[in-house]
């Protein structure tokens, strides 16, 4: 059996390396001054990409749009999801399976299809209505909210179904028996019971709305949300400010996950009656320290301190040195190339070096030459630079 344990452990480590490796590498690239996100070679430690990120007008506008849309989606998808879960709870089993299939379908339907069908339908409706209604209806905000609700509500519903399954129906009966109207029983018994689920459904729907690309990229029309702005930035050339964004999101996630863990642990200890016995909760100091609020505050304080220190970091001297180094190296290369070509011209007359050969030569030369900065800023730039070095003889063909 121990062989299985060793294998299992090794596999788990490999699996989680696959999950976290790309993220960790991305995080590291956020602090490298190289204009292309990479780890090796390392130029300078910098925090400049964060400033660059916040200076991105389009992303920041998208963020605001995403918040507006997210609030709208949460406000509608959570009640709709709750209604779906309640409806399923009262239907006879055959009809329930049918409705469940219909309601869960939007999660499975390609987001592209949802986006298209949304703009087609509402395009037709608003064209039919015309005028001010058309303007109010046929815009990126409205369409995106409507389009996202279609499937985001299903996420909310799944959360509510799970919670409802744990509801003891005699609670409602008890309330009715004690004189509550059905409405009062709903408001005073069922809804409070559902409250935590409402919270997590709101969170999940907000996240799903925020994250969504496939549907939104169609429905948002000429506006952009945070995610669509991000996507278009990634598609049109990347730089490490995106890595900086990843750092921010991962940090928020970790703080959230750790705080949540503290909440869960405490709740479990209290429910299990272990709280009074556990030494961790008996000691007033450790008890206070493990309080979710305190955990959260400490984490936020750490993040704030690190951010402040980081924002004071100045990498311009190092970057200038790197740049100078690069320029020197380029000049050196150019000179060497020139000398070589001149020598060749002298020897063989005019010959055109094959581009591939040029590439290989340029790279080979660089690779062997230095551990720092093999290429200029962007990959294309790098190639271009290499070409540039070889280019002069070409026109003489």
């Amino acid at each position: 059996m121990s062989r299985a344990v060793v294998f299992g452990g090794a596999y788990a480590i490999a699996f989680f390396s696959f999950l976290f490796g790309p993220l960790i590498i991305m995080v590291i690239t956020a602090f490298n001054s190289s204009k292309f996100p990479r780890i090796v070679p390392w130029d300078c430690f910098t925090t400049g990409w964060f400033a660059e990120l916040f200076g991105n007008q389009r992303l920041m506008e998208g963020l605001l749009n995403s918040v507006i849309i997210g609030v709208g989606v949460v406000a509608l998808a959570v009640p709709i999801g709750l209604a779906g879960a309640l409806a399923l709870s009262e239907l006879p089993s055959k009809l329930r399976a049918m409705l469940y299939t219909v309601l869960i379908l939007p999660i499975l339907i390609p987001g592209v299809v949802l986006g298209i069908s949304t703009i087609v339908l509402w395009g037709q409706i608003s064209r039919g209505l015309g005028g001010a209604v058309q303007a109010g209806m046929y815009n990126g905000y409205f369409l995106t909210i409507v389009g996202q609700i279609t499937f985001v509500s299903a996420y909310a519903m799944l959360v509510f179904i799970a919670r409802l399954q744990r509801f003891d129906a005699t609670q409602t009966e008890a309330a009715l028996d004690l004189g509550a109207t059905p409405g009062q029983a709903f408001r005073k018994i069922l809804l409070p019971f559902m409250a935590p689920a409402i919270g997590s459904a709101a969170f999940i729907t907000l996240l799903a709305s925020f994250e969504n690309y496939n549907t939104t990229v169609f429905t948002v029309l000429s506006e952009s949300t945070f995610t669509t702005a991000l996507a278009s930035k990634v598609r049109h050339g990347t730089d490490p400010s995106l890595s900086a964004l990843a750092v921010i999101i991962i940090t928020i996630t970790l703080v959230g996950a750790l705080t949540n863990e503290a909440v869960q642990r405490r709740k479990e200890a209290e429910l299990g009656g272990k709280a009074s016995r556990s030494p961790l909760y008996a000691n007033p100091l450790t008890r206070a320290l493990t309080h979710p609020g305190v955990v959260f505050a400490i984490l936020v304080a750490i993040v704030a301190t690190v951010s402040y220190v980081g924002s004071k970091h100045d990498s311009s001297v190092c970057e200038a040195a790197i740049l100078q180094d690069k320029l020197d190296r380029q000049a050196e290369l150019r000179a060497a190339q020139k000398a070589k070509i001149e020598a060749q011209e002298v020897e063989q007359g005019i010959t055109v070096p094959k581009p591939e050969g040029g590439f290989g030569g340029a790279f080979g030369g660089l690779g062997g030459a230095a551990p720092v900065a093999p290429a200029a800023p962007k990959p294309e730039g790098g190639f271009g630079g290499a070409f540039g070095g070889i280019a002069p003889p070409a026109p003489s063909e």
Partner: protein
Amino acid sequence: MPETSPVSSPDRSVLLDHVSIRFGNFTAVDNANLKINSGEFFSFLGPSGCGKTTLLRCISGFSEPTEGRVLIGAKDMKGVGPNKRPTALIFQHLALFPLMSVADNIAFPLEVRGVGKKMRRKRAEDLLDMIALPGIGDKKVSELSGGQKQRVAIARALAVEPDILLLDEPLSALDLKLRQHMRTELRAIQQQVGVTFIYITHDQGEALTMSDRVAVMSKGVIEQVGAPDQIYNRPRSSFVASFVGENNALKGIVKVQSEDMAALETPMGTFEARVGGGRKYKPGDEALLFVRPEQLVPGKAENAFQATLSRQEFEGATNHVFARAGDTDLRISMVNGGLAGSVGSTGDTMSLGFAPMNATILPVGQIASEA
């Protein structure tokens, strides 16, 4: 009715008027017809699945009878929802609201009737005093012990002074000691508040000790209604005789009946006994003779017969003796007679007898299986 008549107590009776409840082809309750008197402690006793909970839900308004009527305080309850009936139900698992404090639980019936916060708090504290748990109003439900929860559930049910309190096996989740203690307490509370208690249980001990009257149910049918001692001593059907308390059943053929006494011929001999349920038998009819373990007396001359002692179980105050006569296993309960009271050892032959008045002849019918 004028409001200024505190002397005349309200009508807290429940009348089940030929009530039947069916689910599709299944009859859960078959023609229940009885009256529960105002202020009575009334129990429905029966094995699980006998229809007693269905009947209770019908009285509390969670379901309507398929046939017949339910009258509470002489008013027909047809179409009256559970929240509009003067009944309060204590659920089997109590159904206390875990998200509310103890005081909020107790005051919930007042809250939904629009009573102000101060009044609610006052009433909750009064009720907590009544159940002898003062000052726990701000605790969470999860912090209470089993017995405390029980009492809080009762206090909550009594908060708006219902006419009828329905209890659905509320003691079944408690351990034995607490259960016995709560029996006394329930009875005391009932006498204090004067509300009609309708109690559902499969535990005959609970039914017999607490109730004014008991209805024994089996398979949807009410077999017998009566005071506990009547149920125990004068069963009217073989089910009641076998379900309530321990009983020995001897199968035989009626030889002769005169008024309420009859002679039954069994493989062990012919015995004389009382005829149960006022029935008439022809000679030659098959019947069962029930005699309680404590009524079988060694050496008694009446209805005497021989048996072989198979084993004994000593249980302090009582000694349970098991014997075999012919192909019938018998159970005999003997009061511990001190060191002198030994009846013999395994394999010994013993002579047993019983008084005709303390045995009952009943028609062959359903025998409650051992729990």
